[in-house]
C-alpha cells in the first residue's frame, strides 16, 4: 500500500473510531428497537405502564423554567427544576417508543424552555451535585430528542451551549478542585454524578475532549468517584464482592452510588468503552455486595478511613451502616441485564434485587423530594433483554467497525451468492431483517429475502453467502456482545466462526469466516 493510501486509511479509521454514536449515552437505536418490539409484554410492559401513569409523562405537564436555579442555601428553588427534567426524559421515552409526536413536542418544549431561560446554576456546595445529576439527566433527555425532526437545529445548538456554559464549568471545577476541600472529603456520589454529567455533555456536544476527561477521571481520578476509590475493597469468592465507598455511611447513598455506576458505565459502554468490565467487573462486585446486604445477607467490612474538611481531619468507619437498609432505587435492571443477560456473567444477588424491584418506575415514584429524582429510572423498560438476544427483532443496516461499510448482498437474489460490503447507501441490499427465534438469529436481506448463510463452509477465510430459508444451522447465528460497546460479533451456529471482512475495507469485498479474535474486522454495529 502506498504511503498516501496508508495515511488516508489511517485518518478514516481514526475518524470512524472517534465518532460518537447517536443516539447514545443510556440508550442506543438498537435499545429503542428492542423497547418498541417488546413494550406490550412483560417485563417491559409493567415498567411502561408505570411510565405512562406518571404525572410527569403527560403532555399536560407544564414546565416552570427560571433564569437561575439554586440548590442549597438562600433562595433555594431547585424543586421546580428536577421534575421538569424527569418530564423531558419521560416524554422523550414515550415518543420514542410509541411514536406519538405529541410527546416529542412536549419534551422539546421543556428542553427549549429551560435552555433559553436558565443561565446560572448556583447555591451552596450542593450546586456541584446539581450540575452532575441534572447535567447527565437533562443531556440524556436531549440525546433521545436529537433524532426528532421537530427539534430545530438552532434549538439543539442552544441546548448544547446551555450544557456547556451552565453545567460543564461546575463539573470540571468540582472534579479538578473538589471545592478546595480535602480530596476525600466528598463522598463518591459527588464525583460519580459529575463524571456522568461530563461524559453526557461530551457525547451530546460531540466533544471528545470532555468525554475523555470524564473517562480518564473514572479510571484514574484522585477523588472518591474514580472506580477503584469508589469501590475500595474487593473480597474474592463466589460471587466476588466489592465494598462501596459509602457502605459505612448509609445504604441510601450506597444505593445512589449503584445507580450512578450504572449510568456512568452504560454511557461509556454505548460509546465503545467498557467500564462495566473494567478491573475484573469491579462494579459488579460492588453491586453484588450492596444487593446481598440490603436483601438481608451478611457481608464483610473493612475499616474505611477518610479525611474531611479543608484540613483532612481523619475519620473512620469500622462497621457497615444499616441506616436505610433495603434502599430501593429504579436502577437495577440495567445492572442485571448487562451482566447476567447480555454477558452471561453470574450476578445472583443483583438478579434477586432487580427482581424484587421490577417493574421499575421513575421520577417521583420513589420519593417526591430530590432523592426520588436522582436517577431517571425505568430500566426494566429500557434495558430488559431476552436472554441471548441483545438485539431486538427489526430491520437493521449492519456496519463493520473497521471498514465502516455495510453488509450488502449487492442485489443478488440467487442461492449461494456471496455477501459483501459496500459504503452506506440506504439501498435495500444493505437492509437485513433480524429475527430472534429458538435461541438463534436469522438475518434476511430485504432485497430478495434470502438468509445470511455459511453455505456449509467451515474454514478460516471461507466465504459467507445467502440462501433461501431452510431451517439449517448454516442460517442460524448468535449475536454476541463484546467489550466494544455497541459492536457485536455475528457467529455462525454451524461452524462457530465469526462474520469477518477479512481485513479488506473496499467496496464489494466478499465477507469471510474467521475464528473469534480481537480484530475490529469481526465487530458489527446494528443500525436501525
Amino acid at each position, binding site marked *: 500500500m502506498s504511503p498516501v493510501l496508508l495515511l488516508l486509511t489511517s485518518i478514516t479509521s481514526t475518524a470512524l473510531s472517534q465518532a460518537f454514536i447517536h443516539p447514545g449515552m443510556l440508550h442506543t437505536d438498537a435499545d429503542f428497537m428492542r423497547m418498541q418490539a417488546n413494550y406490550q409484554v412483560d417485563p417491559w410492559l409493567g415498567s411502561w405502564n408505570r411510565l405512562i401513569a406518571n404525572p410527569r409523562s403527560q403532555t399536560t405537564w407544564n414546565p416552570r423554567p427560571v433564569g437561575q436555579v439554586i440548590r442549597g*442555601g*438562600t433562595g433555594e428553588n431547585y424543586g421546580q427544576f428536577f421534575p421538569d427534567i424527569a418530564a423531558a426524559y419521560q416524554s422523550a421515552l414515550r415518543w420514542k417508543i410509541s411514536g406519538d409526536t405529541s410527546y416529542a413536542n412536549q419534551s422539546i418544549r421543556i428542553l427549549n424552555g429551560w435552555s433559553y431561560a436558565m443561565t446560572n446554576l448556583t447555591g451552596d456546595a450542593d450546586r456541584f451535585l446539581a450540575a452532575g445529576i441534572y447535567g447527565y439527566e437533562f443531556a440524556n433527555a436531549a440525546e433521545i430528542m436529537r433524532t426528532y*425532526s421537530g427539534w430545530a437545529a438552532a434549538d439543539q445548538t442552544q441546548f448544547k451551549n446551555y450544557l456547556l456554559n451552565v453545567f460543564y464549568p461546575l463539573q470540571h471545577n468540582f472534579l479538578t478542585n473538589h471545592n478546595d476541600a480535602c480530596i476525600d472529603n466528598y463522598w463518591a456520589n459527588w464525583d460519580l454524578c459529575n463524571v456522568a454529567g461530563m461524559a453526557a455533555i461530551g457525547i451530546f456536544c460531540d466533544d471528545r475532549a470532555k468525554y475523555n476527561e470524564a473517562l480518564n477521571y473514572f479510571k484514574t481520578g484522585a477523588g472518591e468517584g474514580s472506580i477503584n476509590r469508589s469501590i475500595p475493597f474487593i473480597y474474592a469468592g463466589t460471587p466476588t464482592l466489592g465494598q462501596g465507598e459509602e457502605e459505612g455511611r448509609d445504604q441510601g447513598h450506597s444505593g445512589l452510588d449503584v445507580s450512578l455506576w450504572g449510568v456512568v458505565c452504560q454511557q461509556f459502554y454505548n460509546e465503545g468503552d467498557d467500564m462495566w468490565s473494567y478491573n475484573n467487573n469491579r462494579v459488579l462486585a460492588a453491586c453484588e455486595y450492596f444487593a446481598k446486604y440490603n436483601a438481608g445477607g451478611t457481608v464483610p467490612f473493612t475499616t474505611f478511613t477518610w479525611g474531611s474538611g479543608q484540613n*483532612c481531619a481523619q475519620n473512620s468507619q469500622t462497621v457497615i451502616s444499616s441506616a436505610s437498609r433495603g434502599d430501593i432505587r429504579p436502577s437495577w435492571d440495567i445492572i442485571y441485564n448487562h451482566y447476567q443477560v447480555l454477558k452471561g456473567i453470574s450476578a445472583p444477588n443483583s438478579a434477586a434485587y432487580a427482581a424484587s424491584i421490577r417493574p421499575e418506575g421513575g421520577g417521583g415514584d420513589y420519593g417526591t423530594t430530590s432523592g426520588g429524582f436522582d436517577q431517571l429510572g425505568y430500566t426494566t423498560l429500557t434495558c430488559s433483554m431476552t436472554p441471548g438476544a441483545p438485539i431486538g427483532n427489526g430491520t437493521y443496516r449492519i456496519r463493520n467497525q473497521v471498514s465502516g461499510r455495510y453488509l450488502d448482498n449487492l442485489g443478488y437474489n440467487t442461492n449461494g451468492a456471496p455477501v459483501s460490503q459496500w459504503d452506506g447507501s440506504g439501498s435495500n441490499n444493505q437492509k437485513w431483517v433480524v429475527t430472534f427465534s429458538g435461541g438463534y438469529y436469522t438475518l434476511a436481506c430485504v432485497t430478495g429475502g434470502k438468509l445470511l448463510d455459511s453455505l456449509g463452509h467451515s474454514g478460516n477465510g471461507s466465504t459467507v453467502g445467502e440462501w433461501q430459508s431452510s431451517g439449517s444451522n448454516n442460517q442460524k447465528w448468535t449475536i454476541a456482545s463484546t467489550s466494544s460497546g455497541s459492536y457485536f460479533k455475528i457467529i455462525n451456529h454451524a461452524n462457530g466462526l465469526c462474520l469477518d471482512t477479512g481485513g479488506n475495507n473496499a467496496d464489494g469485498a466478499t465477507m469471510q469466516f474467521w475464528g473469534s479474535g480481537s480484530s475490529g474486522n469481526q465487530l458489527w454495529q446494528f443500525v436501525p
Partner: protein
Amino acid sequence: MQSAFGNPRIKREPRTKAQNGIRSPVLQVCCAAIAVATVFLLIHSRNQAGSKSDQNEKTVASIPSYPRSSDLLQLPAIAAVAQIPEWQRRLSELSIEPDSDVLGEIAATVPDDQIRETLDILSGGNFGGAGLELGRLLIQRWVKNGMNEPATWAEGVPDGEFGRMACREIATAWAQSDLANAAAWARQLPDGGNKSAAQLSLSFEAALRGHVAGAISLAANVPPGANRDEAMDFSVRQWAITDPNAATSWAEQLPNTPLHDEILADIATDLAVRDPFRAAQLLASASIKEDLSDKAALTIVRFWTSSAPERAADWVAQFPESELRGDAMKNMIDVWARNDFAGAGEWLMHQPDGPARSAAIATYESAHINN
C-alpha cells in the same frame, strides 16, 4: 494542606441535661453572646473556605486576623458558664463550604424536642445560607409529626429570608395533606413577606392539584411583582389544560399588561403540544404583542407539522407575505422535509413565488443534503 483551622480543639465536658435546654436567663444571655460571635466567625470561615470558582469570595490571604471559632471556645468567661449546642459548635467549625451532607449530619445532632428552640436561634441570627439550609432540614423533620406546632411557631417568625423559607416549607408540606387548612393558615399570617411566600407556594400547589380558582385567589393576594405574575401565569396555564376557552377568556379580561400577553402566548404554546389546531385558533383571536405572538406561532407550526403537515401548511398559507410567513414556511419545511421529503417538495412547488417561498426552498435543499 495545612488548614487555617488547624488549631487544637478544646476538649469539652459532656453536656448536662440542664445545659441542653437554655431556659435560664443567664444561659440565654451567654448563648446569645456566643451566637453572635459564632455568626461573626461563621461568615469569615465561609469566606476562607470558599471555592476557587467563587471569584467574589475572599481568599485566605485577604482575611484579617479575626479570632477563630476554636479560639472563641477558649474564652474562660463563656466556656466556664455554658456549652453551646452541638449543632452550633459544628456549624462554627466548618472549614468548607456547607453542603447537604454536612448540614444533614449537623441537623441529626438536634434532638426532636429541641427543634423549636434551635429554629428560634437560627431565625434570630444571621447564619447565612447554612442557617437557612439547616432550618429547612429541621422544619422538614418537624412537620412529619404534625402541622400545628410548626405552623403556630412560624406565625411569630420575623419577616425575612429565614421566615420566608420557613413559611414556604410549612405551606408546601401542609398542602400535601390538607390544602384547605394550609390556605386558611396562610391567609391569617401577618401581612408581609412571609405571608406572601406561603401564599405563592400554596398557589402553585393548588394549581398543580387543579384548584385553579384557589390558586389564582392566593396569587392575587400577593403584592404585584415577578413572583406573583409567575404564579398567576402558571395557575391559568394549569386551568387551560382542562378548559382552554375559559382560561383564555379570563386572561383576556386582564388589564393590558405584559402579564396579559405572556399568559395568552403561554396558553397557545402549551396547547400546541396537544391540539395545534385549537392553539392556532386561539392565537388568531387573541390580542398579543407581536414578538410573543410570532414566537408562539412558530412553535405551533413546528408541532403541527410533525403530526399533520398538510393542515399546518393550510394555516401557514393564510399568513400574509411577511417575515413571519417566511419563518413559518422555513420551520414547516424543515420538519416536513425530514419526515416526508417528497411531500414537502410537492407542496412547495405549488406555492406562489416570493421571498417566503425562496427561503423555504433553501431550507428544503438543506434538508436534502442532511438526509
